[in-house]
């Protein structure tokens, strides 16, 4: 399966899904006009990849300095797909980066870790994302 790379714009993140090396990263800011359209294809490709895997270790890096409400919804769906893969016998390590002063992103990460216990969740506080 081909890797997925989408260059960042001021309002959408860099998507760097290296399916061949099992490292998936999202970086930047996320408030595209239509988050469902932006993330729809990404989540679809991720699901397609995950469906073919068994007993792999996947490293996921999410370093978003800001995401709007509709992106939050789509991130939730993306992480749910990862959780399903983890529950199906894969290992998923999620590095959740947040600015040390940003309680909102920290709290959202904590909620995700409670909702999706199959994922190994690593909270990474940084000075500036």
């Amino acid at each position, binding site marked *: 399966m081909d890797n997925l790379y989408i260059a960042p714009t*001021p309002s959408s993140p860099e998507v760097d899904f290296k399916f061949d090396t099992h490292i998936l990263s999202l970086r930047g800011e996320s408030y595209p*006009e239509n988050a*469902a359209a932006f993330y729809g294809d990404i989540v679809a490709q991720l699901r397609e990849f995950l469906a073919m895997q068994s007993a792999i270790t996947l490293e996921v890096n999410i370093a978003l300095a800001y995401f709007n*409400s509709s992106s939050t919804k789509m991130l939730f769906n993306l992480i749910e797909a990862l959780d399903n893969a983890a529950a199906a016998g894969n290992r998923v390590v999620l590095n959740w980066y947040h*600015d040390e002063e940003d309680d909102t992103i920290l709290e959202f990460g904590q909620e995700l870790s409670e909702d999706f216990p199959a994922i190994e969740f690593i909270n990474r506080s940084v000075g500036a994302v």
Partner: protein
Amino acid sequence: MTSCKIADKYGSFFNLAREHQIIFYYVGYFSQHIVAAMADAVKLQLEVAGVAAPTRRKLFSSFVEMAQNIIHYSADSLTPASQTDGELRHGSVCIRREFDGSFSLLCANPIEPLMAEGLRVKLTALRSMTLEEIKLAYRQTLREDTPDGSKGAGLGFLTVARDAREPLEFDFDANDESGDSPVFYLKAAI
């Protein structure tokens, strides 16, 4: 002198802005490019002004939610209603500094008359909720299917309400001179 005439004619507009401590104002059509450019300008301005990081984050987030609401829901549109990307719709956003140093964020846009009642019900309920209840509603909505007719995720007002210091204020002006559509106003104290 020409400059005096300009001052006479338009000075009141600029003086009013100064009087109200307007730090950002835009009126016109909103596209995603314009929102991204405004967001950049707002972010820079708040950084330069030395506003504390948590306040900057709340202002930025609420600003983007309001601006994108205008792109998605304003009744004054240059693009067909069926278009879901590349939309261009009319409204205004304003950030003002209150005399106590806090911020107010305001937006206004025309809406379809039938939408007013739905907004009133939704925002009246939101106004009566405590912060804990808002957070709970946010968590529930995040896990539900996206409501019909919502282009976001039904989370926009909850996101703004969560960051505001006071209940959100709203109003409808049916007698606005700009046209037949009532104008919806929303204010968040940050």
